[in-house]
């Protein structure tokens, strides 16, 4: 177990290193964009050379990379080329927004879809099953960006009401914060709800065909005990891995939703820095999202052995 975690952490470090190299060099392949923008818009410096020196863009690429990379290791996320503020400072305000959105999406979708998935399996081939299942297929197909757009425009047309679009930090006013964040968070979770319902149903139906479930029936256990104590736990394992795999898509959803609901999260920061060709924040955010994904997948793998004692990592 211990060795497994260490091995996975080393692999994760390697993954992060590859991601950082790729994002860094990809952006530097096209040099000078930000310099042009800065010179044109603001006249920040007398000439290109001076500005490049100020921003450290005149150094050789590998020096720039190692500065940035080793900075990351020591917790220095670099400075925004555009504003000159540190990325860490900017992110410290923004990361709670994105994490809260992702958490609301994940929790709400699990809370809604696992029970629904179990119901569709227990009531297989009844009208309950058909209705819930077709809804779940629809959920997967409806794009987050459309639901977001509808939620903002339709209530405004029908009732002259639209969801609040001014972000309030959780620490300032938890209730107000939730009233702003709940809706966008739920919307990000919608496609996940569809996917998890389908996966839960499929896995439940697969599990209940197995011998130990037949044994449980033969022993004369109550149906409730069989479904909820014997079947569910084993059906949850693949569902869990689906959840882990969907994390990157969930984080992608936050970018779109933050834009629609005007929330000052990491996705919005990424978009605005891309607009200015401001490399450093963009590559740092990609890296942070990647780290989050890797970490969550590690946690999912560890949860496996908790849910299924047969799985042991050596």
């Amino acid at each position: 177990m211990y060795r497994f975690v260490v091995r996975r952490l080393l692999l994760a470090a390697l993954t992060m290193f590859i991601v950082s190299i790729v994002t860094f060099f990809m952006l530097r392949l096209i040099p000078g964009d930000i310099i042009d923008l800065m010179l044109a818009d603001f006249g920040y410096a007398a000439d290109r050379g001076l500005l490049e020196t100020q921003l450290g863009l005149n150094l050789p690429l590998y020096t720039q990379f190692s500065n940035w990379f080793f900075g990351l290791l020591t917790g220095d996320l670099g400075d925004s080329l555009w504003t000159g503020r540190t990325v860490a400072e900017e992110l410290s305000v923004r990361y709670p927004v994105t994490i809260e959105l992702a958490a609301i999406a994940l929790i709400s979708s699990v809370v809604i879809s696992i029970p629904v998935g179990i119901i569709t399996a227990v009531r297989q081939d009844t009208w309950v099953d058909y209705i819930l299942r077709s809804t779940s297929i629809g959920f997967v197909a409806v794009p987050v960006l459309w639901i977001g757009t509808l939620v903002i425009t339709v209530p405004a047309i029908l009732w002259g009401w639209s969801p609040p679009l001014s972000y309030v930090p959780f620490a300032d006013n938890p209730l107000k914060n939730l009233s702003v964040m709940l809706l966008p968070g739920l919307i990000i979770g919608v496609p996940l709800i569809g996917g998890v319902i389908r996966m839960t149903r499929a896995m439940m139906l697969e599990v209940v065909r197995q011998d130990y479930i037949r044994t449980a029936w033969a022993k004369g256990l109550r149906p409730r005990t069989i479904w909820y104590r014997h079947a569910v736990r084993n059906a949850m394992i693949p569902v869990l891995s689906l959840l882990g795999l969907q994390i990157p898509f969930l984080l992608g959803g936050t970018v779109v939703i933050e834009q629609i609901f005007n929330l000052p999260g990491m996705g919005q920061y990424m978009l605005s820095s891309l607009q200015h060709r401001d490399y450093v924040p963009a590559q740092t955010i990609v890296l942070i999202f990647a780290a989050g994904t890797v970490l969550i997948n590690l946690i999912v793998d560890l949860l496996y052995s908790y849910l299924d004692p047969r799985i042991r990592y050596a």
Partner: protein
Amino acid sequence: MVSNENMSTEAVVSRAHGNSLRSSARNLIARLYREKPLGFIGAVIVFIMITMAAFAPWIAPYPFDEPHYSNSLEGSSPAFIMGTDFLGRDLFSRLVYGARVSITVAVGSVLLGSLLAGILGITSGYIGGRYDTIVQRAVDAWMSVPPLLFLLFIMSILGPSALNVTIVLGLVAIRESRVLRGSVLSIKENAYIEAARINAASTGRILWQHVLPNVMVPIIILASLRLGQVILIEASLSFLGYGVPAPFPSWGRMLSSESRNYMETAPWLAIWPGVFLSLTVFGWNVLGDALRDLLDPRMRGTGGGYRS
């Protein structure tokens, strides 16, 4: 699918295989209708969308960029069945051409992606060793980054254009090369591969003649499952301003801020593009699911999950 060389038994067998593929395509549609009604509905939706894309100039009553300033933001009427946008362009015509944009980008990128995933998965699985390790670590890295974010990043470097979106969306398939690698690992152990190797067939020939035909089914399944996903990501990229540029009508961009300001007075601008987008994604998804169930039930659990 077979190059015309000498008539070895192998080529004959492969040719027969090609014929059976064609007739089994016809069978597949029949089976879809009988066994997977939902998948058949998906196929019908997809067929309608493809027809709209192919015959857009004949179906759309107006050119997609023709403004009718005096009719701007009008609701549906006989002249403009789904209303007009802020420049007085006919919404229905734009949606029909939008199908062309969406399908072209999606199909192009899925073909490209299948090629990429096929090459990566097959070579990585077959060759193994250090090459496999390196490729798999790169795939790990790719899978750890939210695709939308990474594609945004690349698109901001390349600049928005339909061709760039198509190429970049092809990268989405890298994730699936792992599934193909898995199948190749088991195919590799078959006796006929060994036989080919004993006959001194080159690695390239083994991959092309013996491994590729055996992973064609997973490649097709993965491609059909990926189509809906790619359409959604294209819409998201265009929505955020990094996808297919104006004046081409992309469903995603039609929902973006450029028309958001008008949506309260002209709700049809918020509704119809989303309906077209969702229907298309729904069609591809259920068709892909049905194809997977019919062609290879073992692949259940691959894809069909959450799309952003």
